[in-house]
């Protein structure tokens, strides 16, 4: 049935209207902990100009942001901060993990560095590279916008179905074996060898 519409009025779905607004005005929260942060700054600066895609309003309060950009390696001491920032961001919110370190720990496979933020917070988009070029981050932001337009709903139904962790289980089996091996290496020479107990036995830190 044809409906006559007055001038300047068009019909759309509420979801599509919300996605259109959300995807074109993303406010990033720059969580820049290392060298990738410099590239993030370059992306926002005049040469690459993130503003062309509506995402130039970097806010340093998580309560005003809806796109978390984790740029750089995250260490054990920083992860509770990152999680807190994520929880403080209002819905709807998305997360870009930028660079090899944020995605997987990168070359920093040591006791203090978290091996990928996706083990502990949800991640929507991974940007490979060490560091990724600004163009690559721009591509990720554009892809993020496309994803929001593709999957977004007004009430955030696309979020509530994601109830399993996005990354590998924090303590997957090979990691367990590796740590066992490391602890089994027999050390000679001095009597009291292994002293640290490790934290595995404990419940989660608060």
């Amino acid at each position, binding site marked *: 049935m044809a409906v006559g519409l007055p001038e300047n009025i068009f019909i759309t779905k509420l979801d599509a209207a919300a996605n259109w607004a959300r995807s074109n005005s993303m406010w990033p929260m720059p969580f820049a902990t290392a060298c990738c942060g410099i590239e993030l700054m370059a992306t926002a600066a005049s040469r690459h100009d993130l503003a062309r895609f509506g995402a130039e309003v970097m806010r340093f309060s998580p309560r005003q942001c809806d796109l978390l950009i984790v740029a750089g390696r995250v260490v*054990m001491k920083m992860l509770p901060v990152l999680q807190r920032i994520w929880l403080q961001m209002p819905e709807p919110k998305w997360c870009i993990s930028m660079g090899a370190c944020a995605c997987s720990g990168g070359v920093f496979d040591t006791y203090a560095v978290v091996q990928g933020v996706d*083990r502990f*917070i949800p991640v929507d988009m991974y940007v490979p590279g060490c560091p990724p070029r600004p163009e690559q981050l721009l591509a990720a932001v554009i892809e993020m916008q496309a994803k929001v337009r593709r999957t977004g709903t007004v009430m955030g139904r696309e979020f509530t179905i*994601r*109830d399993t962790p996005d990354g590998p289980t924090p303590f997957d089996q090979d990691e367990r074996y590796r740590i066992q091996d490391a602890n089994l290496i027999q050390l000679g020479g001095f009597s009291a060898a292994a002293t640290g107990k490790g*934290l595995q036995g404990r419940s989660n830190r608060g």
Partner: protein
Amino acid sequence: MVELSVLQSRFGAGITESVFRDNRRIDVSSGSVFEILSGLKAEFGFSMLIDLTAVDWLEYEGATDRFSVVYLLLNMDTGERLIVRTAVNLPDPCLPSVYSLWRGADWMEREVFDMFGISFTGHPDLRRLLMPEEFDAYPLRKDYPLKGRGERHNFPVITRSGS
């Protein structure tokens, strides 16, 4: 330059000297290290503590002690440098703090405590400096695995629907 014989006559014969690439080092016993350092500061003009760090000698060929604690001193008037080393061992590696001599030793001793588990008696605030408070290993000890014992995985997981 402060001659070894001068130091030995002042602080006792237990001091030995060695040179490596123009760096002059004296080895002293852990019991007398505080007295020697305060003497070096007060009488020999070593007014600045450049660095304070430690070495783990586990599995090192010919090593007799588990840890060395190293003090790098500088005489600000003559430019002379001197490295003072002392040895400590498990199970309770412990030294007197030099915070009362050089305030700069504050964080250096905290770092050595954090990384090697060597405690310094008399330090005003001996907490971990780099690692989280609840971390209970000493990562720069040679018997600690590089990839840790799983501490880096022990965090709550936040899923998308749960946040």
